[in-house]
């Protein structure tokens, strides 16, 4: 074995040395001499005198600290605080609700099966879907406007921008896939371009001035904003066919 390194001597000093190192130290005169010097130098570093604090010290600290503390609000005890009859009542209520929902569901399904689905044929784009997509496009429009005027120095604004982009990204994917399936290439294409912008904004770790500029130029955010506004201006059934309506089935 080679002579002990300073690191090995340190391990031995703090009683963490390997058995091999300890054995070597016993048998090697040179290392013993070096270690004795090493030990002396570390033994010489003694803890400096810590000023004594009396038994009243804790009180003094507490008195100084107490006015700065705001009491925690009492929390509701949760399930553990409920008495048995409260739990029994809650369980019974849940059971009753579940039973009612089950029976109601069965009844509704049977009655639905017996009637032809005329309403669905008459209105190919459910109203609620149109409203949901309009809301998505509204939010997207606001995000693009914000992005076009974003100031790289405002970290709070950028963080909010990224958070909004992340939220919109998931729903945007869903709408894009649905639009493709429904055969609306204009909507699907616009949503696809929009998705790329959202991905860039959501995943950029810093969103610096250069990043913002790059996204604006490379992705043509102004153009996409225009497209979104056009889509927002479209009315359901405006162009005659069901696919032209600003809605997709989700």
């Amino acid at each position: 074995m080679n002579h002990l390194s300073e690191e090995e001597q340190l391990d031995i000093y703090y009683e963490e040395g390997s058995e091999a190192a300890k054995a070597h130290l016993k048998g090697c005169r040179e290392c013993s001499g070096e270690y004795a010097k090493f030990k002396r130098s570390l033994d010489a570093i003694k803890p400096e005198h810590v000023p004594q604090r009396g038994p009243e010290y804790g009180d003094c600290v507490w008195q100084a600290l107490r006015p700065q503390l705001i009491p925690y609000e009492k929390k509701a005890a949760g399930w553990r605080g409920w008495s048995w009859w409260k739990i029994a009542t809650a369980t019974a209520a849940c059971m009753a609700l579940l039973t009612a929902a089950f029976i109601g569901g069965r009844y509704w399904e049977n009655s639905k099966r017996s009637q032809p689905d005329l309403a669905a044929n008459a209105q190919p784009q459910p109203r609620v879907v149109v409203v949901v997509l309009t809301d998505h496009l509204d939010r997207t429009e606001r995000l693009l406007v914000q992005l076009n005027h974003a100031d790289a120095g405002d970290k709070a604004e950028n963080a909010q921008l990224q958070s909004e982009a992340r939220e919109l990204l998931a729903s945007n994917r869903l709408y894009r896939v649905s639009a493709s399936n429904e055969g609306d290439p204009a909507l699907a294409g616009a949503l696809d371009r929009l998705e790329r912008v959202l991905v860039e904004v959501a995943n950029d770790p810093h969103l610096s001035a250069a990043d913002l500029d790059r996204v604006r130029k490379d992705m043509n955010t102004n153009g996409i904003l225009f497209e979104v506004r056009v889509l927002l201006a479209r009315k359901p059934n405006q162009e005659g066919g069901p696919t032209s309506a600003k809605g997709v089935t989700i």
Partner: protein
Amino acid sequence: MQGNDHSIVRAVLAGDKDAYGTLVRANSAAVFRVAFRIAGNEADAEEIVQETFLRAYQRLEKFEQRSTFGTWVYRIAVNCALNRMGRPEIEAEYRHGEESDPEARTVQVATQDADPERVLLGREVSAAQEMAMQRLTATEKCAFVLRHLEERSMSEIAEVLGVAPNAAKQAVFRAVQKLRRELAPLRGNA
């Protein structure tokens, strides 16, 4: 004691602010000791004690059942001390110290005779040791204090500093190397 700590913490979280006083009283001295050893002066140590208990109160909901309040608050104290030491003005002070003439820092070795001269030299040795400690980086000093003076294990030091055990060991080693080098003139051998 651990169970008692947890029941007190539950009481504090339930709105009994004064129950926290029991924990403060029981742990103030230990927190002061480690704060003083890292900060090196009473004024900073006192501030670290206040800051530690304030931070601990604010994070009390994160206090985990598996450790005692004493261990938990000890870690917070070390972190508070580290933050305080890591402040730019303090680092600048250390750099200023490093720029001073190394010759001026050399002092004579104290003899074993008990006389006024020896007492004076003893003080100089302590001052040199303190200066050498101040020249360490915040992490090195903290790691060394915890290992050498507080006799904490490497895994505890690593946990407190938020680094890997090997990195903690390296920090202690670098501190030892620097201190030995700085204090070599006092011992008359390397």
